[in-house]
């Protein structure tokens, strides 16, 4: 079996077995390593990507499920770190070890794409899907608020 789909606007192809998590195809076949492996069980959000414009755990998505679909990874969010969420993340100096932050940023971008002016409670609810072991949470809230304001 072979699967064709789009990643960051470009045609992508995988010969991995159908049940293979999209995460590993993205990271090890396509070598887009900004998307991270954290838990493999859809609990931490380090692997978050967008599939057809909505956030999805790439570790819980089998490669067969994205055939014909469009996947966006952190590398495709912007060409030059200019997405309002990325700019806000730097302005608020959110990252510490940084490992979870691609997933955090993809979650935040998804929130703002569907709800451009979220209130604090909505931000907290949406972003609680992602774990940050460095505890950058307070800055994450500030950064999402800033991105919403400056977008």
């Amino acid at each position: 079996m072979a699967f064709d789909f789009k990643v960051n606007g470009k045609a992508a192809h995988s010969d991995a077995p159908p049940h293979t998590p999209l995460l590993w195809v993205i990271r090890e076949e396509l070598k887009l390593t900004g998307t991270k492996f954290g838990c493999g069980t859809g609990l931490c959000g380090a692997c978050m990507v967008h599939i057809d414009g909505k956030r999805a755990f790439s570790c819980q998505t089998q490669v067969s499920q994205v055939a014909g679909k469009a996947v966006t990874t952190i590398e495709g969010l912007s060409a030059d770190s200019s997405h309002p969420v990325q700019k806000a993340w730097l302005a608020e100096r959110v990252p510490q070890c940084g490992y979870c932050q691609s997933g955090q940023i993809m979650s935040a971008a998804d929130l703002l794409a569907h709800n451009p002016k979220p209130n604090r409670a909505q931000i907290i609810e949406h972003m609680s899907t992602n774990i940050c072991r460095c505890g950058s949470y307070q800055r994450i809230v500030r950064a999402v608020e800033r991105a919403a304001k400056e977008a």
Partner: protein
Amino acid sequence: MTIQIRNTDIGRRGFMIGAAGFTFAVAARLPFEPAEAAGKDVALSPWVTISTDDTVAIMSPAAEMGQGSLTSLPLILAEELDADWSKVRIVVAPPNDELYKNPAFGYMYTAGSNAVTAYFKDLRRFGAQVRKVLLANAAKHWNVPVEELTTEPNVVIHEKSGRRLSYGEIAAFAEVPARAPEVAESELKKTNQFRLIGKDVMRVELPQKVNGTAQYSIDVHVPGMLYGAILRSPVEGGGPDKVDDAKAKSIAGVMRIVPLPYGVGVIAETPWAAFDAKEALKVTWTRTGKAWGFNSEKALVDFAAAARDISRPAKLWAKEGDAPAALQTAAMVVEGEYRNDLVYHAQMEPLNAVASVSPAGDACELWCGVQSKTIAVTVAASALKIAPDKITYHDMLMGGGFGRRGHRDEEYVHDAVVLSNVVKKPVKVMWTREDDVRNGRFNPLSVHYLRAGFDASGKLIAYHHRKATDEVTAFQDPVRFGRQNGRDIIAFVGIDAAYYAVPNRLAEAVPQDSGLRTSSLRGISHLTNIFAIESFMDELARKRGVDPATFRRELVKTNPRALNIIDRVAHMADWGKKRDGSALGFTYMNYSGTQIALIAEVTVDRGSGVVRVPKVWTALDPGVAVQPDNVVAQTESSIVYGLGFALWERITIDDGAVQESNFYDYHVPRLNEVPEMFIEVIATDNHPTGVGQMATPLVAPAIANAVAELTGVRLRETPMSPERVKKALG
């Protein structure tokens, strides 16, 4: 401002201050594309190279795991060099203990929140020395007395004649003395002259952490690379007895099954094949090793008996006066017992490493994220029985460390080296999250028994603390344990609460030997010690009917910095104001010189036992704050880490094996569970002390003290899970 990782070009140059003729034996590369300096470079010391294009390359000696040392250490040197930060390139120092050792440890090791503390003095001197060399060269060039020269960032100025020379211009003709010039303390900048320290520069790798280009070892790709996974014995000391690998071998892409003394390795063409094969292995294990049969719940009872029975043998940790005698004569004696479960690091990047052993087995390239790169080189060299200079080490960012990556055996690095050695090809060995939990090395179980005595006037006259726990250093770093003559700093430091004035003090280590894998974890020994000590102080204050903040004030009254932060945090939280439906808990500690006080506000749902923490206030004085906003970030981080320890995080062991496996049964804090945090950094002119974990130990006792205030019930065991809280409330 760029990061330069490849320093091979620096290696070819011949002269450097204090290290004439030194060339780097090992090239360190990080996965950033370096912006090469356009001009000719002059290496002015093993730490600094200035290019004729005015670029200043500065070595960064510490490992970066999120704490910011990659930036803050070169910043200190740049300050005294008076470098223009926009022209600084940070170069990751290669593994070389002689040149780049952490002065506090004697080797390149990033731990204990001491990087800035330990390197501060030397880095300032190195910067000042290079500045002096530049000044001397400019003075000679202009034929003027050096005393007439000053500097501005990257420029030497002769004010009298209005002449200026950039550092890059000087590099074009600079002569470097064989011996570094002397620098007197009085020649260093005063804190009010700092241009960089205390000003919050952007952490150098942060831009790469918002666009996915930051490189961790798990991201490494090497041509021809294979994938490895290892099934380890569930119990430390066990090994494979019978291995049925028929099913594993039948999985497409699986190349080798590798029996190891401690487990079974798999080498495959793809990560999914490696993981599937590991799952498909059927292994029975030898019951070798001490921990078989160990049960963590039962062990806590045994540890408690050992701690409470003062006739049982103990190692003397600290003694002042005669605490047992004072307790005999005391007008009032108070005792308390506190227990702590095992805790897991849960760094976000599951452990992994990439190794590429040469076809002849006589050299190895290594990509890994470790707290000690020289240990990583030693581990690889020892595994292959080759010389350390045959290891080419590539420094990688770490997706969290928290103490997990600082063990003497760095076993996940060893994994990659041994599997690569089997096939003589590059192998990326990845642990799954389940591997990372089950093969975890944990903050150990501990039981603390404390006694205190007051005289008739109500003065605290005796303090006695016995801590029963496994000796962590013995497992984590036998080399260090030997050097410390069996004195286990990781497990016990701080049990004496030496910063509290008590005339009679006895602190005793009651070592246990459960055979479990143990580790330092964020907060180190203080994580559990301070839960005991600060809970106990709160109990003492309540028994005496004294306000808990006032009670601490009395015990630190000769330390104005401590008093200041105690008063500050009390002011911030409006301590003393009664809340409706919630209450506050107070804590203080002197953490390796950093003065820190923390107050938590809690609510308790009596029906469910759920404790919530809406707000936390912290004030800390770490001396000079090199990167003040990063001090705040590290403190936020410390509080969140401490919250997990306080309320949820718990590893249980049965028959020696870990029972948890992933984030569904090991609960770490999420955004909707963290308090609003109010943090004030009170920077002073004192020598900088740690900031990376100082709030972590205070969170649990602050919560317990607040619960006591709110309900009158004392919680004595971490985590303070709903079941335990419900039970305690009755």
